[in-house]
């Protein structure tokens, strides 16, 4: 099973196994990884599963399509950066085994 590492804003890492096809958000929520709220449950409607994707993984996760719902929701997030994604929109594949994402200061 692919492994994903979530690094909290205070630096604490959490590595968990996430079944193929589930979202990176679901991997955090199902394993009680703190720092991801996912208020809307994965509908891309709240921007509370916001993560920063580590640079070396960006080619594999990609960035939100301009004009997409994800880009629109992220544009309202308080602390968005160029490597911001909503983790409910990243589906776990074998190619993402080892993925590292960081949490923002707050989910907003």
């Amino acid at each position: 099973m692919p492994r994903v590492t979530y690094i909290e804003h205070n630096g604490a890492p959490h590595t968990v196994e996430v079944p193929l096809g589930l979202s990176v958000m679901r991997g955090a929520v199902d394993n009680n990884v703190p720092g991801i709220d996912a208020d809307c449950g994965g509908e891309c409607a709240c921007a509370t599963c916001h993560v920063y994707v580590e640079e070396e993984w960006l080619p594999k996760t990609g960035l939100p399509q301009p004009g997409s719902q994800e880009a629109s929701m992220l544009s309202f997030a308080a602390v968005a950066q160029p490597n911001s994604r909503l983790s409910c929109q990243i589906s776990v594949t074998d190619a993402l085994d080892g993925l590292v994402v960081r949490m923002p200061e707050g989910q907003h």
Partner: protein
Amino acid sequence: MNAPVGIDPHADAWNRPLDSFDMSDPRYYQDDTWQPYFERLRREAPVHHTADSAYGPYWSISRYKDVMHCEVNHAVFSNEIGGIQVEDQPKDMQRPSFIRMDPPKHDEQRKVVSPIVAPANLNNMEPLIRERTRRVLDELPRGEVFDWVEHVSVNLTTMMLATLFDFPFEERRKLTYWSDVAIANVNAPDAPVRSEHERFDELKNMAEYMSRLYEERRNQPPKFDLLSMLAHGESTREMPLREFMGNLALLIVGGNDTTRNTMTGGLLALNEFPDEYRKLLTDHGLIESAISEIIRYVTPVIHMRRTTTRETEVAGVRIPAGAKVVMWYVSGNRDEEAIEDPNRLVIDRRRPRQHLSFGFGIHRCVGNRLAELQLRILWEEILERFPMIEVVGPARRTYSNFIHGFRSMPVRIPA
């Protein structure tokens, strides 16, 4: 149709013909009889058409997942065409604000004010909110009955508003008054304004008062208050009068009324479910999830309205273009398909943050974290000093189909 006094709402809800349902009648919320009607709608007509009401024909969306569908499809369900309430603003008295806009203008204006509730700024505000909350609670009488709405909910949220606007502190009750003016149902017996004209005139007075502060801020370097942000924001510094009125009313109501009523409704809910109150008293670690659960249970905004930009379908029902669509948050938050045992307050439920009270999608409540912060501090400080605060008489609710509010609630803190 109406909800006459003295009839059994359960029997009425299940016996009356579905086509006579009109949940826009404010008495359902003032009398707190809405639940069985929505239970039937969710089960038998989750996408329901009311052919005639005081506000014209409209569609009702009552299930959680269907509300979510409308929320995320903002290209089909517009805020700009008809506004956000089942009741239209009169054509010659419209007051645009960013919640009544679609992209791109909505996005530009929202981004001007959103930094005030960014995580770092909330951290900065926390000590001030806590100090005020302590002072208000320490001054409350013990062993005698007083009005929780006036002494706690209005008092605390008014001070918060004064801070957000950097408004003259000693005049802060003006803000509460304007908030009441902005949302009042003009037919309510205790409404501060009696007609749409009166409302418009009072909000114009508000805009005139505020424009003096706005001009001052414009001529000063940018500061971290809402008026300064509007005065310096690229998409807000040249607003026409009505848009200024609309955006101020939006920020005042949004920053005040909803939190105020959740402060009251939360204490009432914990009194209705004393086992949950006891759980909270013994385990303060539950405060955070209790706050989310209270926000769901209270649902301080009853509905939001959209207007269809084209013909569409919701849950298999065809809705024509140009239709008024009402998303009933009160109902979606009690949808048994989405939330287990939804009519109970359960302060340690799984996933307490999954509720509709803040809305979803691009119009999701911008101040939701500030609201949660104020409520968390309030309950931390309450639990720190008081045993169970008793609600000792009926709470008087607001006559409104939009704001789920309280006018008064008698309580007593044991001596």
